[in-house]
């Protein structure tokens, strides 16, 4: 009991002095500024999200005829419609498969490459590291015209599976770069001991490195998944048939039809936002502290 009482105080003291407004703390000015500032930011951040929620739960009458901010009564009709009467479940499944496959392939490629670049001695290491970063930074907008042309001759085009190949453009350099950063923090004596034991390189990779870097690798995987889940442009360019569409293009077409079905659209949007948002809430701790260096999202 005594320790639990003592600890927060001990921690809070230095931390409190560290912050910018520490001196204003007792004056109340700091609190007022924080309260107003964060209040404005919260409203600014949340109103579109609440509008999605509100729209998705309103009967059509509240949406178009007698408009209201909040639902006059809550209905699940839009959710039923989007799940039963549209191909949304198919889109969702396609997105899930594409994002999962992209993530798995990218992680394997990244772990192998990052191991080579942090633990093996060979000429050309610097060049490959530089090429990886440059590739990560090259914006896909510069590539989509030629890729569109190339993809038209490929066997996979038009199928969701073809998107996996395209998504590796972002996923592989990104995960490789982050994996290099994490592998660099793993002390090398661990591995030297394993070498004496006669473990092979590949075994040391999977028995020592991967388990040690597992939390980090999980975070990288979550980001890769989210990126593939959210991708729009290439899916739009390469997918035509309904059965192969992913969620972003599927939802976008809800709007381009003749009828603007905002209710089902917002219901679908809410469902489609859940995976990345949940992933992000779970990984939030590492987002701020761990992923410095700027390699976060494309």
């Amino acid at each position, binding site marked *: 009991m005594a320790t639990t009482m003592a600890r927060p105080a001990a921690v809070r003291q230095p931390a409190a002095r560290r912050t*910018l407004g520490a001196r204003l703390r007792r004056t109340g000015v700091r609190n007022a500024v924080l309260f107003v500032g*964060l209040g404005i930011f919260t409203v600014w951040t949340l109103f579109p999200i609440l509008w999605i929620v509100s729209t998705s739960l309103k009967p059509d009458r509240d949406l178009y005829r007698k408009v209201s901010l909040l639902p006059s009564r809550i209905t699940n009709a839009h959710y039923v419609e989007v799940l039963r009467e549209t191909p949304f479940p198919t889109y969702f499944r396609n997105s899930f498969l594409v994002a999962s496959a992209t993530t798995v392939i990218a992680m394997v490629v990244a772990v192998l490459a990052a191991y080579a670049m942090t633990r093996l001695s*060979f000429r050309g290491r610097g060049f490959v590291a530089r090429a990886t970063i440059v590739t990560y930074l090259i914006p896909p907008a510069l590539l989509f015209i030629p890729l569109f042309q*190339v993809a038209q001759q490929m066997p996979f085009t038009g199928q969701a599976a073809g998107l996996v190949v395209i998504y590796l453009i972002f996923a592989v350099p990104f995960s490789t770069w982050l994996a290099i950063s994490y592998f660099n923090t793993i002390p090398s004596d661990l591995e030297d001991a394993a070498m004496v034991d006669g473990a092979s390189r590949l075994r040391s990779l999977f028995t020592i490195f991967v388990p040690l870097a597992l939390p980090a690798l999980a975070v990288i995987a979550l980001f890769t998944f989210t990126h593939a889940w959210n991708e729009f442009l290439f899916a739009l360019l390469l997918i035509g048939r309904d059965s192969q569409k992913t969620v972003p293009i599927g939802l976008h077409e809800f709007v381009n039809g003749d009828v603007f079905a905002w209710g089902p659209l917002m219901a679908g949007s809410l469902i489609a936002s859940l995976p990345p948002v949940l992933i992000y809430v779970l990984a939030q701790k590492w987002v701020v502290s761990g992923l410095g260096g700027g390699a976060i999202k494309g």
Partner: protein
Amino acid sequence: MAAIPGTERRPALLRTATPRSAVSRLLGRDWRIAWLFLLPLLLVLVGLVTYPFIAGIWLSLQRKVVGEPAAWVGLQNYRELLVGEQYAGTFWNSVRVSLTYTATAIAVKLLLGMAMALMLNERFRGQTLMRAVLFLPWAMPTIIVALTWRWIYDGSVAGLINFVRVEYFGQEELVQFLADPKLALWSVVTVAIWQGTPFFTMMFLAAMQAIPGEQYEAAALDGANVFRRFADITLPSLAPAITITALLSTIWTANSINFVFALTRGGPVNATMTFPMLAYEVGIAGARQLGLAAAVSVLFFPVFIVAIYILTKRMLSTEGRA
């Protein structure tokens, strides 16, 4: 054991104890297994990035319409974009729009992101929850963000902003946020700011947490006020993070097509025609002139080379720190 690929490389490892062969001296001790492990990465870098990149430059030198054979035209496409009768106006308009769009979005995201990070770096009750809430836009799929704002901007009284104006502020006139050429670009920029600010906040917050507290204590003892401490300690310490974040975001913001595509498709009268949108309209949607569209992208590339060069240097120098 023997079934595990890579084990056959073991003799190469044992050889390190003995004098190295000429090949190993030249290529490095583990060159065989290293390049084997790098092979998948190299396939992606070469096959999916380098090849299309070169193919794009090649394509920009051809007259190529989808479904028809290509014809070599040299720099004709570039001439058409820069000084040609049909396209020059549109192209230079897209330069102006891209510049306004990117510069405004980056400047506002930087200011808002800094303000948010400074507040979130303070200690208060509910800090973790607050962070989670303010970071939400960043986690949402861009296309869903765009569609939601399209609904918020709706030009009828059903749109959120117009509804609030009419219902609570007594305005009569409905504002056409996306159809009015004077408002459309700012409406799209606003959406980019809404979603992009948390990334800046996150990067600044991470950098702020790395500043040693003693610096603030010393400054406080010297009687420096909040603003002095921000200018003398926080800002200089954040300089590298500001550079990296702004450059990364510049590349992404300028090249993203999603917001424009879903909100306005470049209209009204090209008021929001950023260059990726122009490339799409020229190459994919309308005339299907792939060569001309490729030239649009290639013309913009030099702008990003500078950003990519600086970022690559910075990221390589921070490599060890994770």
